[in-house]
């Protein structure tokens, strides 16, 4: 019993990291007024390229750096399109998701000749042992969340960033360069997401699979709304949804142990729906409508 609790807790702590990194990153971007629906695509592409790096260099930390780089480049693309070219942020993000999925699967098939999953690659070690363990990146991501909260709500540069998302015209009058602020915010957000994507491979699963992200980028977007655009609450949100994620993988294994004769291959599909149902119910029933940044998603047109 106690090991079940600890096991689930550890799985939760492992599963919440990418959600937390991506949602904190997206909070920065959305507070500045840019919405990035392409989190899912960044997850997939960065997971693939970091798996590729870890496969050839055998070094998970280089793979993490590659994840950051993928995030950076995706951020440049989305930032240029949505800030400077005044593009439609949702369409650009949706297109990026398709492109990233397509190119990662092409890469998977061309590199390893596999249609489902890459070989196992070098992984980062966990901290702890026995039934209770977590990744060093968990601590990093929690620190990032707290620092970002402090930055956004207790410093003047954070205030300026939020002003860009609330009322860009006043921010401009205050002397803030709205376009540049939004661009940098998008970059930082995308880089944190890229780190999360690399973590899924070298910190958690240990290989790249076709459905590695499976909507987690969108769960991170749900956490952003759930948290009311507050990084501290996003820690709790990531933990809740990380728990459901862990539960959906844990239950079929556990049931199989108790009833060894039951055929669970098809029933496990039912458990896989748990995190998505949890998100849907939480956001649609159990949660107070948050106030989003007023200028979210609108391109700023300088006069």
């Amino acid at each position, binding site marked *: 019993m106690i090991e079940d609790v600890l096991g689930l807790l550890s799985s939760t702590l492992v599963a919440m990291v990418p959600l937390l990194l991506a949602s904190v990153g997206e909070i920065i971007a959305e507070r500045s007024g840019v919405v990035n*629906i392409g989190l*899912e695509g960044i997850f997939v592409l960065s997971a693939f390229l970091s798996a590729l790096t870890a496969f050839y260099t055998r070094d998970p930390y280089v793979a993490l750096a590659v994840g950051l780089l993928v995030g950076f480049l995706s951020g440049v*693309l989305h930032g240029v*399109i949505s800030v400077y*070219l*005044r*593009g*439609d*942020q*949702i*369409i*650009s993000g*949706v*297109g*990026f*998701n*398709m*492109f*990233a*999925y*397509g*190119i990662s*699967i*092409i890469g998977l*098939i*061309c590199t390893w000749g596999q249609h489902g999953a890459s070989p196992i690659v070098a992984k980062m070690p966990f901290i702890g042992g026995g039934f209770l363990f977590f990744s060093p990146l968990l601590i990093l991501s929690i620190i990032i969340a707290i620092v970002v909260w402090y930055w956004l709500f207790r410093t003047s540069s954070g205030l300026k960033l939020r002003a860009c998302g609330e009322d860009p015209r006043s921010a401009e009058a205050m002397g803030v360069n709205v376009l540049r602020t939004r661009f940098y915010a998008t970059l930082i957000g995308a880089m944190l997401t890229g780190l999360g994507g690399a973590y899924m491979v070298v910190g958690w699963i240990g290989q790249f699979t076709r459905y590695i992200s*499976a*909507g987690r980028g*969108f*769960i991170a*977007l*749900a956490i952003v*709304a759930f948290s009311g655009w507050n990084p501290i609450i996003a820690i709790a949100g990531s933990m809740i949804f990380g728990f459901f994620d862990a539960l959906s993988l844990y239950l079929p294994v556990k049931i199989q142990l108790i009833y060894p004769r039951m055929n669970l*291959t*098809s*029933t496990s*599909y*039912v458990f*896989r*729906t748990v995190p*998505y*149902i949890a*998100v*849907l119910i939480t*956001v*649609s029933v159990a*949660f107070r*409508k*948050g106030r*989003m940044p007023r200028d979210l998603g609108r*391109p700023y047109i300088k006069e």
Partner: protein
Amino acid sequence: MLRTSLLEIPTSIIISFLLGFVLLLSLGYDPVNIYKIIIFGSIGDPDYLLIRSTPLVLTGLAFSIPFLTGTFNIGGEGQFYIGALLSLLAAYTTKSSLMAIAVGTMAGGVLGALIAIIKVYRGINEVVSSIMLNWILYFSILFSITTFLYDPLIPYQSVPVPLDARLGCIQILGERVPLIFLIAVCVAFISYYILYYSRIGYCMRVSGLSPKSARYAGFSPELSVITSMVLGGAMGGLGGSLLVIGHTYTIDTTMSALYGMGFAGIGVGLLGRNNPIGIIFSSIFFSMLVIGGEMAELRAGIPTELADALIGIMVIALSMPYIYRIVYTYIRSRK
């Protein structure tokens, strides 16, 4: 508007093919040969091309109708799944294609309404709830097919649609035309009429352009959002329905024929400039890409996901009308 579209559509296609060219070259393939296969591979069999375009016409409409009210229906995927599954069930039990179509369409509409209600009354971005529903339905349908609906003779697919409920081809002026494509075209024309010549469509368009004006004019923009999502969802459901009763006649246990149709619909809708008539043409173009991609896999070994990547680049290129407007104004001023 039309003139910038004329610039926008070819440019996005060219950009995507150019980037695809670089991609193929860097992966060590012969891009010229692969593009040849993609472009000419699908023209050989027009029946098949039209059959494959049918679901895309409808998922394109599923995206574009709500788009007019400023709503992003990314849930076309889930609406397509539920339409396919429930039509299969209806066809299996009632042996009637009409029944199958009605059930599939209604299921999609209900799903669309659910997303719209969560958006309007809870303020949750429709993109998030749509994607959650997509995954819930994806796994639920895998579960129901592998557990209850599998064919005892062919375990990797579901029970088939009975022969009485299948839709085939009919002869028009000596040409064989798939019935499901005809239905899709009729639906596209009806949608065009509803959107541009009816009161409902007018309310929807005004709400999309300016919710405040809609409110002053006395109709509720929220109601328009819900109406548009019901219509859009119904299109997604109908798409799944037509695929099952007119093309695959069964659902395989990996859902390979269903997966990605809703997402491709976003590209179809955007490339068709969200105009139902334009969507008919863009869906034929997209199914050329998809069929060509499959041929290229058979003949040159390039994964079919090439089509996904190309469509993705096209969608990104279509997200910035501002650029095309600048270029267009620049070209005009030079003359």
